[in-house]
């Protein structure tokens, strides 16, 4: 008999309600702004990026506005999802979330590294304490939100396995288990979902492994128990419910790129100047606003150009879209 997973009991007094969370944010933000005044220039930009402030200044960021990012409500972040493993509509992932049991769960790390291995999820959560990162999130479908993630830098995890000099890329895979992921019973995509990053993208301090949302455990529909978050790329790069990481010499073929190579590239950096064949990427709809709310201009690299644009210096971003 398989042992059934029993979720740990969390007294309701320990679950942060959203309003309380927001009040707390306001205090932290005030403190953060005071702190920024002291911090050195380069560091401040990075800190700003982490706390969700649009990094201002840069020419490409005109129109970003200097307002602090207001997180999208929990209800919307968790009920408007693209997660085909749990259904292809926006609402199905939340409805089917109960199928995705996240224990037992382990992460295997292999490929071009000195110390390949398997990590149990609870061990992993213990080894890498989560911090909060408020990031913009931009879907390739031209909608956007702001997400208060909890997680840790991917680089911390990767370093533990000591990638060798032959590790040029990192390949990620989602769980394949049609019982826990009923969407996999039909071949809508070529399961399991695969994504990849270049090594320098993977090691970038903005690249996050998310394990929580709004200070709570990550809901299944958002990619529990652990997912990638690469805030300057379209959402499909931020692969969910990861079970395997492999260091590779060759560029991995990501799932959507295999599906439609002219529509979805490997890099998938947010770029207002490269349209999807079926829609423009110039503007984006902010989720949760009214029907008469204006869309806003899409920012190059989703507003993180100051931090990441140099990773692509000299590359033709129209060709490597």
């Amino acid at each position: 008999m398989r042992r059934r997973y029993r979720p740990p009991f969390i007294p309701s007094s320990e679950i942060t309600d959203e309003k309380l969370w927001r009040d707390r944010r306001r205090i932290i933000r005030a403190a953060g702004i005071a702190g920024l005044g002291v911090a050195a220039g380069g560091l401040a930009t990075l800190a700003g990026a982490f706390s969700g402030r649009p990094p201002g200044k840069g020419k490409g960021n005109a129109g970003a506005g200097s307002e602090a990012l207001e997180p999208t409500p929990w209800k919307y972040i968790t009920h408007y999802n693209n997660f085909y493993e749990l259904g292809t509509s926006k609402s199905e992932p939340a409805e089917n979330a109960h199928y995705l049991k996240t224990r037992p769960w382990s992460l295997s790390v292999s490929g071009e590294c000195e110390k390949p291995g398997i990590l149990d999820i609870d061990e992993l959560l213990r080894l890498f304490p989560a911090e909060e990162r408020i990031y913009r999130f931009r879907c390739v479908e031209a909608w956007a939100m702001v997400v208060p993630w909890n997680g840790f830098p991917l680089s911390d995890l990767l370093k533990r396995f000591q990638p060798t000099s032959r590790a040029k890329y990192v390949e990620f895979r989602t769980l394949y288990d049609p019982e826990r992921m009923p969407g996999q019973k039909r071949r809508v995509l070529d399961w399991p979902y695969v994504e990849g990053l270049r090594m320098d993208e993977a090691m970038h301090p903005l690249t996050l492994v998310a394990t929580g949302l709004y200070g709570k455990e990550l809901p299944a529909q958002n990619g529990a128990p652990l997912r990638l978050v690469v805030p300057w790329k379209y959402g499909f790069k931020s692969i969910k419910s990861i079970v395997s990481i492999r260091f590779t010499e060759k560029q991995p073929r990501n799932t959507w790129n295999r599906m439609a190579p002219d529509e979805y590239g490997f890099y998938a950096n947010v770029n207002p100047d490269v349209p999807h064949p079926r829609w423009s990427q110039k503007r984006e709809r902010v989720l949760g606003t009214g029907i008469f709310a204006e869309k806003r201009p899409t920012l190059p690299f989703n507003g993180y150009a100051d931090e990441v644009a140099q990773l692509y210096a000299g590359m033709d971003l129209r060709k490597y879209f």
Partner: protein
Amino acid sequence: MWRRAYKPAIFLLCLLPLAQMLWQLSSGALQPNPVEALLHGTGDWTLRLLLVTLAVTPLKRLTGWRRPVLWRRMLGLFSFFYAVLHFLVWLALDRELLWSQILEDLTKRPFVMVGFAAWLILLALAVTSNLWSMRRLGANWKRLHRLVYAAALLGVLHYWWLVKADVREPLIYLAVYAGLMALRLPWPPGGTVMSPWRRSL
């Protein structure tokens, strides 16, 4: 007789999807992306009502029930009504009346071009759906209105091209369309089945 209530009842029935969308809009049920929800809702009902309109003739052939012929024009006009809403939602809320983008979509994106072609056909049919046009156009009226088959097919194609990966729904519409077209083929050879209902309109 109750039969006189059929047509007004169907009129109200055709307004229900709109009423539901407006209700959901005001209650917040279309959040977090109400524009997308309205665009999809109006697109769905344009295509559904177009297929319902195309079901009238096969229904008559199969069952001999001819009364729905009296509602066919109204059904077609309702399909056009939702098409107009669909187009307006797209123009004003989705494309935000940004004409350079609208032009780009209409000239570069095949799924939009196909939808627009279907829309223009529906417009032409709606404009000529009155008695005066029927008289003026004579035999050409029938030829013109056969374009409805093309409009429905273009609508299905439009849907097929816009989905990202899961083509289940467009496939269902395609199957319904194909079925309705097949039922128009001369069958059985030598004439249609004479249903006992036929005489009682």
